[in-house]
Protein backbone atom coordinates (compact mmCIF):
# COMPACT_ATOMS: atom_id res chain seq x y z
CA UNK A 1 0.00 0.00 0.00
CA UNK A 2 1.98 3.00 1.12
CA UNK A 3 5.72 3.02 1.66
CA UNK A 4 7.53 2.67 4.95
CA UNK A 5 8.42 6.32 5.11
CA UNK A 6 4.87 7.55 4.53
CA UNK A 7 3.09 8.70 7.61
CA UNK A 8 0.03 9.77 5.67
CA UNK A 9 -2.35 6.94 5.32
CA UNK A 10 -3.45 6.30 1.74
CA UNK A 11 -6.51 4.11 1.65
CA UNK A 12 -6.92 1.77 -1.28
CA UNK A 13 -10.29 0.61 -2.49
CA UNK A 14 -13.20 0.89 -0.15
CA UNK A 15 -11.33 -0.51 2.82
CA UNK A 16 -12.74 0.57 6.11
CA UNK A 17 -10.50 2.33 8.53
CA UNK A 18 -9.67 0.19 11.55
CA UNK A 19 -10.78 1.60 14.86
CA UNK A 20 -8.16 3.78 16.43
CA UNK A 21 -6.90 5.11 13.13
CA UNK A 22 -8.12 8.64 12.55
CA UNK A 23 -10.21 9.12 9.46
CA UNK A 24 -10.91 12.74 8.84
CA UNK A 25 -13.67 12.31 6.32
CA UNK A 26 -15.70 9.68 8.10
CA UNK A 27 -15.58 11.27 11.53
CA UNK A 28 -18.89 12.61 12.73
CA UNK A 29 -18.55 16.29 13.40
CA UNK A 30 -21.15 18.17 15.34
CA UNK A 31 -20.98 21.28 13.17
CA UNK A 32 -21.34 21.56 9.42
CA UNK A 33 -17.94 22.22 7.99
CA UNK A 34 -17.41 24.30 4.93
CA UNK A 35 -15.22 22.63 2.34
CA UNK A 36 -13.13 24.21 -0.35
CA UNK A 37 -11.35 23.05 -3.47
CA UNK A 38 -7.59 23.32 -3.04
CA UNK A 39 -5.43 24.32 -6.01
CA UNK A 40 -3.46 21.37 -7.32
CA UNK A 41 -0.61 21.08 -9.81
CA UNK A 42 -0.37 17.87 -11.77
CA UNK A 43 2.79 16.54 -13.35
CA UNK A 44 2.42 13.61 -15.68
CA UNK A 45 5.72 11.84 -16.09
CA UNK A 46 6.74 8.56 -17.67
CA UNK A 47 7.05 6.98 -14.25
CA UNK A 48 3.75 8.21 -12.90
CA UNK A 49 1.65 11.11 -11.80
CA UNK A 50 2.78 13.66 -9.22
CA UNK A 51 0.20 15.88 -7.55
CA UNK A 52 1.06 18.90 -5.46
CA UNK A 53 -1.76 20.46 -3.47
CA UNK A 54 -1.79 23.64 -1.38
CA UNK A 55 -3.43 22.61 1.90
CA UNK A 56 -2.39 25.24 4.45
CA UNK A 57 -3.23 24.05 7.94
CA UNK A 58 -3.44 20.36 7.03
CA UNK A 59 -1.82 17.84 9.34
CA UNK A 60 -0.91 14.23 8.62
CA UNK A 61 -3.28 13.08 11.29
CA UNK A 62 -6.31 14.80 9.76
CA UNK A 63 -5.52 14.14 6.11
CA UNK A 64 -7.36 11.38 4.33
CA UNK A 65 -6.33 10.18 0.88
CA UNK A 66 -8.23 7.41 -0.84
CA UNK A 67 -7.80 5.63 -4.15
CA UNK A 68 -10.80 3.58 -5.18
CA UNK A 69 -11.55 2.35 -8.66
CA UNK A 70 -9.17 4.87 -10.24
CA UNK A 71 -10.82 7.74 -8.40
CA UNK A 72 -8.44 9.60 -6.15
CA UNK A 73 -10.02 11.57 -3.33
CA UNK A 74 -8.47 13.70 -0.68
CA UNK A 75 -9.95 15.33 2.37
CA UNK A 76 -8.10 17.49 4.88
CA UNK A 77 -9.79 18.51 8.11
CA UNK A 78 -8.54 21.87 9.29
CA UNK A 79 -8.55 23.03 12.88
CA UNK A 80 -9.18 26.75 13.38
CA UNK A 81 -5.89 28.59 13.96
CA UNK A 82 -7.40 30.88 16.57
CA UNK A 83 -9.13 30.23 19.88
CA UNK A 84 -12.88 29.83 19.86
CA UNK A 85 -14.64 33.13 20.34
CA UNK A 86 -11.96 35.20 18.63
CA UNK A 87 -13.50 38.10 16.78
CA UNK A 88 -12.78 38.47 13.10
CA UNK A 89 -11.51 41.93 12.19
CA UNK A 90 -10.34 41.40 8.63
CA UNK A 91 -11.02 38.47 6.35
CA UNK A 92 -9.32 37.44 3.13
CA UNK A 93 -9.82 33.71 3.34
CA UNK A 94 -12.46 31.54 4.93
CA UNK A 95 -11.77 28.69 7.31
CA UNK A 96 -12.80 25.25 6.23
CA UNK A 97 -11.75 21.80 5.15
CA UNK A 98 -10.26 20.86 1.79
CA UNK A 99 -11.71 18.30 -0.54
CA UNK A 100 -10.96 17.24 -4.08
CA UNK A 101 -11.45 14.19 -6.29
CA UNK A 102 -9.87 13.12 -9.55
CA UNK A 103 -10.51 10.44 -12.09
CA UNK A 104 -7.20 8.89 -13.06
CA UNK A 105 -6.79 7.62 -16.57
CA UNK A 106 -3.90 5.32 -15.86
CA UNK A 107 -3.68 2.36 -13.56
CA UNK A 108 -1.68 2.99 -10.47
CA UNK A 109 0.92 0.71 -8.93
CA UNK A 110 -0.50 0.87 -5.44
CA UNK A 111 2.57 -0.40 -3.67
CA UNK A 112 4.59 2.49 -4.97
CA UNK A 113 2.35 5.35 -3.85
CA UNK A 114 4.17 7.94 -1.75
CA UNK A 115 2.71 10.89 0.08
CA UNK A 116 4.37 13.67 2.00
CA UNK A 117 3.10 16.82 3.62
CA UNK A 118 5.56 19.69 4.03
CA UNK A 119 4.69 23.26 4.98
CA UNK A 120 1.07 22.62 4.09
CA UNK A 121 1.80 21.23 0.63
CA UNK A 122 0.79 17.64 -0.08
CA UNK A 123 2.96 15.91 -2.62
CA UNK A 124 1.49 12.66 -3.85
CA UNK A 125 3.27 10.33 -6.26
CA UNK A 126 1.19 7.72 -8.05
CA UNK A 127 3.40 5.43 -10.09
CA UNK A 128 1.95 3.92 -13.23
CA UNK A 129 1.47 0.21 -13.07
CA UNK A 130 3.56 -1.87 -15.46
CA UNK A 131 0.56 -2.46 -17.63
CA UNK A 132 0.04 1.26 -18.08
CA UNK A 133 3.58 2.02 -19.08
CA UNK A 134 4.48 2.59 -22.69
CA UNK A 135 6.64 -0.17 -23.93
CA UNK A 136 9.11 0.29 -26.69
CA UNK A 137 8.77 -2.21 -29.48
CA UNK A 138 11.99 -3.26 -31.03
CA UNK A 139 11.96 -3.20 -34.80
CA UNK A 140 14.20 -5.81 -36.18
CA UNK A 141 15.45 -5.34 -39.66
Amino acid at each position, binding site marked *: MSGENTRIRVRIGSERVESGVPNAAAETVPTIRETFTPPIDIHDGPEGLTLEADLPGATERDLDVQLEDNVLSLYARIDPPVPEGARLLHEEFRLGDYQRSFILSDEVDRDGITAELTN*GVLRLFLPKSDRARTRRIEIKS
Partner: protein
Amino acid sequence: MPRSSHWRRDATSAFHLLQHELNRLLEEYLQPARFGGGESPPTDLDAAAWSPPIDVYETPEEVLIVAEVPGVDPATIDLAVTGNLLTLRGVKEPGNLPEPLLQGRERLFGAFHRQITLSSEVDFDQAAADASQGVLTVRLPKRSAAKPRTIPIRPG
Protein backbone atom coordinates in the same frame (compact mmCIF):
# COMPACT_ATOMS: atom_id res chain seq x y z
CA MET B 1 -18.72 -2.53 -9.60
CA PRO B 2 -16.22 -1.70 -12.27
CA ARG B 3 -16.99 1.28 -14.40
CA SER B 4 -17.15 0.78 -18.13
CA SER B 5 -13.70 1.75 -19.21
CA HIS B 6 -13.59 1.27 -22.95
CA TRP B 7 -12.94 4.95 -23.41
CA ARG B 8 -10.26 5.04 -20.77
CA ARG B 9 -7.97 2.70 -22.63
CA ASP B 10 -7.86 5.18 -25.46
CA ALA B 11 -7.45 8.13 -23.15
CA THR B 12 -4.49 10.28 -23.86
CA SER B 13 -3.20 12.64 -21.25
CA ALA B 14 -5.02 15.46 -23.06
CA PHE B 15 -8.30 13.75 -22.33
CA HIS B 16 -7.36 13.30 -18.74
CA LEU B 17 -6.62 16.99 -18.53
CA LEU B 18 -10.01 17.85 -20.00
CA GLN B 19 -11.75 15.59 -17.53
CA HIS B 20 -9.79 17.12 -14.73
CA GLU B 21 -10.59 20.64 -15.82
CA LEU B 22 -14.29 19.90 -16.13
CA ASN B 23 -14.31 18.39 -12.66
CA ARG B 24 -12.57 21.41 -11.27
CA LEU B 25 -14.78 23.96 -13.00
CA LEU B 26 -17.87 22.16 -11.80
CA GLU B 27 -16.56 22.04 -8.24
CA GLU B 28 -15.76 25.71 -8.28
CA TYR B 29 -19.19 26.50 -9.63
CA LEU B 30 -20.88 24.50 -6.90
CA GLN B 31 -18.76 25.79 -4.06
CA PRO B 32 -18.90 29.20 -2.48
CA ALA B 33 -16.14 31.57 -3.35
CA ARG B 34 -13.42 31.10 -0.84
CA PHE B 35 -11.43 34.24 -1.24
CA GLY B 36 -13.45 37.34 -0.83
CA GLY B 37 -14.57 39.48 2.01
CA GLY B 38 -14.86 42.35 -0.39
CA GLU B 39 -11.18 43.02 -0.50
CA SER B 40 -8.42 41.35 -2.43
CA PRO B 41 -4.99 41.23 -0.85
CA PRO B 42 -3.02 44.29 -1.82
CA THR B 43 0.15 43.46 -3.68
CA ASP B 44 3.09 45.65 -4.41
CA LEU B 45 4.21 43.22 -7.05
CA ASP B 46 2.81 42.02 -10.33
CA ALA B 47 -0.82 40.95 -10.20
CA ALA B 48 -0.21 37.43 -11.46
CA ALA B 49 2.14 36.57 -8.59
CA TRP B 50 0.92 34.91 -5.46
CA SER B 51 0.32 36.72 -2.21
CA PRO B 52 -0.62 35.09 1.09
CA PRO B 53 -4.20 35.78 2.16
CA ILE B 54 -4.40 37.19 5.67
CA ASP B 55 -7.08 37.15 8.34
CA VAL B 56 -6.93 39.29 11.45
CA TYR B 57 -8.69 38.34 14.68
CA GLU B 58 -8.84 39.72 18.17
CA THR B 59 -9.57 38.36 21.61
CA PRO B 60 -9.76 40.44 24.77
CA GLU B 61 -6.08 39.65 25.34
CA GLU B 62 -4.46 39.88 21.93
CA VAL B 63 -4.62 40.50 18.22
CA LEU B 64 -3.93 37.50 15.99
CA ILE B 65 -2.74 37.66 12.42
CA VAL B 66 -3.09 34.48 10.38
CA ALA B 67 -1.48 34.15 6.95
CA GLU B 68 -1.73 31.15 4.66
CA VAL B 69 1.76 30.41 3.39
CA PRO B 70 1.71 26.89 1.92
CA GLY B 71 4.97 25.89 0.29
CA VAL B 72 6.92 28.68 1.98
CA ASP B 73 9.90 27.65 4.06
CA PRO B 74 9.34 29.33 7.45
CA ALA B 75 13.06 30.02 7.75
CA THR B 76 12.82 32.35 4.75
CA ILE B 77 9.91 34.42 6.04
CA ASP B 78 10.84 37.91 7.10
CA LEU B 79 8.48 39.42 9.66
CA ALA B 80 9.28 42.91 10.91
CA VAL B 81 7.68 45.86 12.63
CA THR B 82 8.35 49.53 11.98
CA GLY B 83 6.22 51.81 14.10
CA ASN B 84 2.70 50.47 13.69
CA LEU B 85 3.42 48.77 10.41
CA LEU B 86 3.90 45.02 10.32
CA THR B 87 5.57 43.72 7.17
CA LEU B 88 5.65 40.16 5.94
CA ARG B 89 8.05 39.18 3.17
CA GLY B 90 9.11 35.90 1.67
CA VAL B 91 9.03 33.67 -1.36
CA LYS B 92 6.81 30.76 -2.28
CA GLU B 93 9.02 28.54 -4.38
CA PRO B 94 7.67 26.17 -7.01
CA GLY B 95 8.72 22.55 -6.79
CA ASN B 96 11.55 21.17 -8.83
CA LEU B 97 9.45 19.07 -11.19
CA PRO B 98 10.29 19.53 -14.87
CA GLU B 99 8.08 22.09 -16.62
CA PRO B 100 7.31 20.13 -19.79
CA LEU B 101 5.56 17.50 -17.71
CA LEU B 102 3.12 19.96 -16.20
CA GLN B 103 -0.41 18.95 -17.11
CA GLY B 104 -2.27 21.27 -14.79
CA ARG B 105 -0.94 24.34 -13.05
CA GLU B 106 -3.29 25.96 -10.56
CA ARG B 107 -0.99 27.00 -7.78
CA LEU B 108 0.68 30.37 -7.89
CA PHE B 109 4.18 31.20 -6.71
CA GLY B 110 6.52 34.07 -6.27
CA ALA B 111 7.84 36.68 -3.90
CA PHE B 112 5.37 38.39 -1.60
CA HIS B 113 5.34 41.53 0.46
CA ARG B 114 2.36 42.31 2.68
CA GLN B 115 1.94 45.25 4.97
CA ILE B 116 -0.49 45.47 7.84
CA THR B 117 -1.15 48.59 9.85
CA LEU B 118 -2.08 47.91 13.43
CA SER B 119 -3.31 50.24 16.08
CA SER B 120 -1.02 51.15 18.91
CA GLU B 121 -3.14 49.11 21.29
CA VAL B 122 -0.81 46.16 20.72
CA ASP B 123 2.55 45.67 22.30
CA PHE B 124 4.87 44.87 19.39
CA ASP B 125 7.75 44.03 21.69
CA GLN B 126 5.78 41.07 22.97
CA ALA B 127 4.91 39.76 19.52
CA ALA B 128 5.30 36.02 18.96
CA ALA B 129 5.08 34.23 15.64
CA ASP B 130 4.69 30.58 14.73
CA ALA B 131 4.74 28.96 11.31
CA SER B 132 3.64 25.37 10.88
CA GLN B 133 1.78 23.36 8.26
CA GLY B 134 1.92 26.31 5.91
CA VAL B 135 0.17 28.73 8.26
CA LEU B 136 1.86 31.70 9.90
CA THR B 137 0.27 32.96 13.11
CA VAL B 138 1.40 36.19 14.74
CA ARG B 139 0.15 36.93 18.24
CA LEU B 140 0.28 40.48 19.48
CA PRO B 141 -0.71 40.96 23.10
CA LYS B 142 -2.70 44.08 23.79
CA ARG B 143 -1.25 46.68 26.06
CA SER B 144 -2.96 46.58 29.46
CA ALA B 145 -4.69 49.87 28.81
CA ALA B 146 -6.36 48.38 25.73
CA LYS B 147 -7.73 45.29 27.44
CA PRO B 148 -11.33 45.45 28.47
CA ARG B 149 -11.66 46.04 32.16
CA THR B 150 -14.68 46.15 34.33
CA ILE B 151 -15.22 49.09 36.61
CA PRO B 152 -16.81 48.12 39.91
CA ILE B 153 -19.71 50.31 40.92
CA ARG B 154 -19.83 51.12 44.57
CA PRO B 155 -23.31 51.16 45.98
CA GLY B 156 -24.13 54.75 46.87
